[in-house]
Structure formats: structure tokens, C-alpha cells
């Protein structure tokens, strides 16, 4: 088995793959909320991926990849037995976790998997954990059973209402805060920046509930040197890789992240796909067939 070899790969929901890799050094030290930086091959970029689960005894780590660009496409084409070029971690500050009381842990799309270790740890610390998970449609919901083992309540939300409530996380939260008058001590939210900014706005206005969001920014070196992952926090500049990735949501300048920072490289990201052609499986099939015919 070579280093960073994929032990197990599973597509459990369209576009979402769970990968298990043996990296004992990371497994030993990982804490909830931390991430790893992954390079697919020698010339690829580094992308940050949240650690979902880790097993200290076996020395394996698990993370989820959502296919949405060049590097993640390359990952989607890898098979069990292929290796990554490098994996660095665990990076970032662990999430802010204590016995708060009643905690709402919410995740949308990619964030659903990312909130799993946080919900797990919060439950271990004795919190009353309410999980809200959101997806566009019922066939994109996942980890429902896993969350049931680490939460006291699980609420499902879909955009089209095919399963659970109809709408988004902030609709459910609003309902919880206003009409149900429930006491919430702390909120964790992970998902796309737009959704998190809305949740942040909501909790700020209604009851000023402490809300902590794990931001997604562009990241290159991951150790605080390059500055790619910077964001404006409480008027100051902070780095998501060393000061975060979890921050107090009310102090983040969401407009800047959404409209300025994350749009910087859209043209390069698009153009990089122009000459990307994963090995056509048909070709491999024929080469194998002609090789068989030659030997027979």
C-alpha cells in the first residue's frame, strides 16, 4: 500500500464521494473542525477539505469530496488503489466546543458531512444537540442515520419539500426562534457562504444567539504565509487557515467573501477545464481487449 492510497471510495449521493485514506499521523492528532490540504497530482492545486471522521487505532481518516471544479473532478475519477500526491494536516484551529447547553448544528449540501464531527463532539460534551440538515432534494440528503446517533433531534429540510420541511435552514431556525420560543445557546453552521450569511443575519437580529460559521475561502499554503484565505473579521484581517476556519459569524464581512474574494479566479477555474480530459474509459477497455487478443 503506497502512501495516501485510497482505501475506500463511495458515491453515496450524486456528486458526493466519501474517501477513506490511511494517514496515521493525521488520524492521531485530528480534532473536530480541522481540515486537510490535498494535492491530487504533482502539478495540481491544493484544496482544503474538512475532516469528517478519523480512527486513531486504525490510523485512517475520512473526508467528503464534492465534485465542483477541476481538482475535485480529478478526484472523482480516481479509483480505490490510486494515491494522492500529498495530504497535509490537520490544519486550522479546532472548532469552539464546550457544554453550551442546547446547540443547533446545521449543515447544507457539503456542510452536512462537515458538521458531523462537530455534532459528535458536542454530544460527547453533554450538549442537547439539534441537527438541521438541508439539501436541494431528498435524493441529495445524506448522513441522516449517522446524525441520529449523535443528536437528540434531527430536522430535515429540502428546497422542494420532497422530504422534511420545505425551504432552507434559516426558515426552520426562524420558526424555532420565533414561534416555538425555544432557548438556543449556541449555533454552528457550515454550508455555502450565502446560506451562512443569511443565518448569521437572522441570529444577529433575533436574539443575538452566538453563531459560529466555518468559512470556505480560497486556500493555497494553509499555514498562514500566503494570505490567499484572508477575510475581514471585525474590521481586521484574519486568515482562515490559522485563525479559523471557524469564526464568530456575526463579525465576518460576508459581502466581501461572497462577492470579492471567492470570485477572484473564476476565469482561470473555468479555463482550466478546457483541456482536461480524464482518461476515456472506452480507450482503456479497447486497449485491454486488443492486449488480450494479442496474447491469446
Amino acid at each position, binding site marked *: 500500500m503506497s502512501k495516501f492510497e485510497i482505501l475506500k471510495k463511495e458515491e453515496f449521493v*450524486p*456528486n458526493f464521494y466519501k474517501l477513506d485514506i490511511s494517514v496515521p499521523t493525521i488520524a492521531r492528532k485530528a480534532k473536530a473542525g480541522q481540515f486537510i490540504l490535498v494535492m491530487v497530482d504533482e502539478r495540481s492545486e491544493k484544496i482544503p477539505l474538512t475532516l469528517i471522521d478519523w480512527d486513531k487505532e486504525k490510523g485512517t481518516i475520512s473526508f467528503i469530496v*464534492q*465534485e*465542483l*471544479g*477541476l481538482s*475535485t*473532478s480529478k478526484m*472523482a475519477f480516481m479509483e480505490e488503489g490510486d494515491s494522492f500526491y500529498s495530504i497535509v494536516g490537520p490544519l486550522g484551529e479546532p472548532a469552539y466546543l464546550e457544554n453550551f447547553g442546547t446547540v443547533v448544528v446545521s449543515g447544507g449540501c457539503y456542510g452536512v458531512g462537515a458538521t458531523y464531527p462537530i455534532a459528535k463532539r458536542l454530544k460527547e460534551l453533554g450538549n442537547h444537540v439539534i441537527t438541521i440538515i438541508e439539501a*436541494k*432534494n431528498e*435524493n*441529495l440528503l445524506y448522513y441522516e442515520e449517522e446524525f441520529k446517533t449523535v443528536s437528540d433531534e434531527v430536522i430535515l429540510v*429540502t*428546497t*422542494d419539500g*420532497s422530504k422534511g420541511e420545505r*425551504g*432552507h435552514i434559516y426558515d426552520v431556525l426562524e420558526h424555532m426562534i420565533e414561534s416555538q420560543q425555544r432557548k438556543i445557546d449556541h449555533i454552528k453552521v457550515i454550508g455555502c457562504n*450565502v446560506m451562512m450569511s443569511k443565518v448569521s443575519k437572522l441570529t444577529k437580529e433575533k436574539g443575538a444567539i452566538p453563531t459560529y460559521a466555518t468559512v470556505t475561502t480560497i486556500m493555497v499554503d494553509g499555514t498562514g504565509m500566503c494570505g490567499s484565505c484572508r477575510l475581514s473579521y471585525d474590521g481586521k484581517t484574519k486568515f482562515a487557515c490559522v485563525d479559523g476556519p471557524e469564526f464568530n459569524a456575526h463579525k465576518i464581512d460576508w459581502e466581501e467573501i*461572497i*462577492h470579492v474574494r*471567492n*470570485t477572484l479566479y*473564476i*476565469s482561470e*477555474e*473555468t*479555463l482550466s*477545464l*478546457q*483541456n*482536461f*480530459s*480524464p*482518461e*476515456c*474509459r*472506452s*480507450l482503456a*477497455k*479497447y*486497449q485491454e*481487449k*486488443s492486449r488480450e*487478443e494479442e496474447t491469446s
Partner: protein
Amino acid sequence: MTKWMNINGRRVVFEEGETVLEVATKAGIFIPTLCARPDLPSFGACRLCIIDVEGNRTYPNSCTLPAREGMVVRTATPDLQTVRRNVFQLILAEHPSYCIICKEHDECEKVRHGEYKAGRVIGCFTCSNKEICEIREISEYLRVKDIRYPMLYKNLPLERDDPFLVRDYNLCILCARCIRACQDVLGYSAIALTKRGHDTKVGTILEVSHLESGCVFCGHCIDVCPTGALIARGSTWFGTPDKSVTTTCNLCSHGCQMVIDVKWDKVVNVHPPYELSARREYCVKGRFCIPALVNGRDRLKYPTVKRKVIKEEQYPVPWDEAITHTADKLKGYKPEEIGIILSPSLTDEAVYLLLKFAQRVSTNPVVFIEEDIKNLQSQGVKAIFSTFNSNVFSEFDGLEFLILQDIYQSNSSDTAEVVLPTTMFAEEDGTKSGEEYMKYAINKAVEPPGEALPSWIIVSRLAQSMGLDGFNHESIENLQDEIRNAEPLEIPKVSKQQLEYMGVPIADKVEEFRLYITSKRAINQSKGKGVLDVQI
């Protein structure tokens, strides 16, 4: 004889043989359609174009109903709209349409800058067809904001084992436009409707790959598909182009008209003009390979001269220096020692000037095809100005001075003393003489990389530097005027089978094309067919 019918209370004139849809469209009356297209034979599957015909019990399709004298038709009664809305909701129920009914729809458009660029489509925000999607257009027209029927995601795997195309049949609404284009218009029949009832799916015979089923990758199916089910792998995700320029392809002598989409000042897509009478049958190279070819990382940007700095290498110099160096050295050769090599992929203007130049400086016939380069060797040629890259140069005995006008780095650069970067057809204006004396316009779409110049300007400057007159055209229009009054040019025809552009093998620069050729050859071999019998 004019015939009359009545549509929505208006008397409308029509001709024998027209369908009601055609008549209504000509009269400016809108009827929503999803499977009908004027350039495809009508099929009648989507049932959105239904109309109310007086005297008919059921609602017939307007796309297949021939117009009759005295017919009374209504196109938008409340009942028709209700049925249409319900039928459309059925379409949406099996298509990932969560974004269409999401109440954040309008705000999301402002905030999302570009779609997620890969994988299966799980909503409009991950679909590369979002800007031109016909389903979204019709949902606007019918004002459908909700889907009341059980939703079903077909969960078919993404088909991306074939080069160039990515097929996500979870989005397919089975309008069969692609099949009609492939079978009825072009005659290839690579795809058809397979299975039956709810499992109906567009597919190939016995579910073989498209490489085997007879697909020639002309891309016409992608052009006619109303949804994002069929997309070209390398030319998606850019949204609305900044500009679209109609020009002529110069990869061979066919002269296909094409529209180049430009975004962020780069070529992102090439497609046929939307006017439906345009020639549609592109070859694989023209349809899919041009963006990658034009945007290649190692395009030549600066003129270089071979010089020993630490070791001997191609050293970048300014244009003036390169031209002067070339002109001075060329003057030292006799006319019988100079050879000029033309590439058939040059614009007419470049060819004209090169021929004129050749008349003045060389007594050897101008070489058009690679096989004739060796003849120059037997004629004792020592200096060559070549617009065509060839491996023959490294074995050319007696070659002392090679000037290469090229677009990409190659190993001939080692043999050449001067390498001059030039533009590709997407980066310059000009004219192209196609088949049967047709003249086509080549229009500039993007700026050339670095300091690359059009070939006619390079020849012009070189000739002027050598003291020749008649090369001081101020603009390309002046040059075109001169050409118009001159003798017609003799330009060799390049067949569609040519795998190179100005001597650069396309398969080297476009990975997907390389995969396509090697796959096709492997398939032919396994079937006992000629390996070279690959339609490209």
C-alpha cells in the same frame, strides 16, 4: 392561390403544406414548444404546442397538424394553458428543477458568480446550460412556480466515458431532437430511443460507447438539445459570452462558418451559427478542439534568435532585431539557394504576399506540401523561410539558415535560427478562399498571445527590411484591394483528414483529440478494420 385560416380571431394566410405552428410563427403568434425546431422533422412528443381546433374532440399538436382552408384555431385558451402548465410540471417533476421553484431564485442569480463546474447536475446552479436553457424560458412564460406532482430523480449515472461529450440523461426530457438531428438530418444514426415506457432513454445500440456506434462527434446533437443533458466537455461553464464573432475556420479548405464565443478575452467555445440554414456538419477538430488549440500554454509569444548565451538556445529578441537579422542574412544568399514554404492554412493575404515575396527573392518553386520539401534539398537550397513546421528540417542536408514562422514550440525550433510567432485564424482578420471559388471572411475574435503578428505583416516587414518595394500596405484593406485586382490565387486544397494545423499535430496539443484518435484506431483494430480509417 392564397389560403386563409383563422388563428385567435385573426385571418391569417398560409401556403399548402405548412403546419399550423409554422403559420402561427410567421404571423407572430407565440406557441410554446420544446421538441419542435424548424430545421428538424416534427415529432410531437412534448405536447406543449397543443391547440384548440374547432370541431376536434382532442387537442392536436400544432407542429404536426397541416393547415387547412377555413380552420379555426385558438392557441391560448384557459383550458389549454392549464393542460400545458400541468404537462410542463410533469416535465419538471423528472428534471432536477429545484432551482426553478426555489423562492430564492431571483436573489440567488445575483449572488452566485458562476456555477459549480463539474459532476452531475443537481439544480440550475450546477448546470452549464443555464443561460440558454429552454426549460427555464418556458417556465418563465407559463409562470410555473411550483411542482405538485411526485418528484423523481432518475439517478442515471453520468456518461463521460466518451471523449468530447458529457451526457447527463437525468436532465433529458426525451424530446428526441438529438436523434432526429443524427438520424434524419445527418444520417449517422448513432443514437436512438431505447427501451420503453418510463425507462425510455436515449442511447446507442446495445449500449456500446459512442466511439463504436458510428458517432462522428460533429456536435450537432449538443446544438439542438434544449436542456443541459448534452454538453461539450471543454467548452462549458463560462455562462454568457462577452462577445460572439462569426468567422471562418481555417483548419482545412472546407471553410465552415463558425461563431467563436469569447469570454475573459479568451476563446471559450466554437459553435455553428444559430441561423438554421448554415452548414452544420463540422468535423471533430473544428467543433471541439479549437479553444484548447488556441489557448495552449506553450503558444509562441516572442520572436527568438538562436544565440549562445550560456548554452545555445532560442533567445527572445524584439521584432525589429529579429526582422533585421533575418533580412541581413537572407541578402547574403543567391536566389537559387532560397526556398519558401507555404502552409495551406494561411489566409489569402498572407499567401498572396508570400508568393509575391518568393517571386522577388527565390527562383525555386514555392513549396505547398510537406513531401516537396525534400526537393529543395536536391536543388541546393540553403536558406528556407517556412510557415509550416516539419520534422524534415532536422534531416535536411545543407540547410544553413532556417526561418520558422510558427504557433507552438516544437523540436524544429532547435534547427531553426529564427523563430517568429504568428497568429491563428481566431486572432486575425483576413479572407479565405474555400471550395468552388467561394470567398469567406475571417474575423478577429481575440488578441494574439504576447507579440505574435499576422503572417502577412511579418512577410511585409521582412520584405521592406530587405529593400523590396510593393510591400508597404498600410492596412489589410489596401492589401485586399490589390488582391482583388490581381490574378486568382492557386492555393492547394487541404482535405478534412489533415491532422495538423500549420504543421502542429492537433493531437499533441489537445489531449482529448489524441484520446479520440487512439481509441478509434484501437476499436478499428479490434474489429479488423483499417487502422487509419478514422473519420476526423
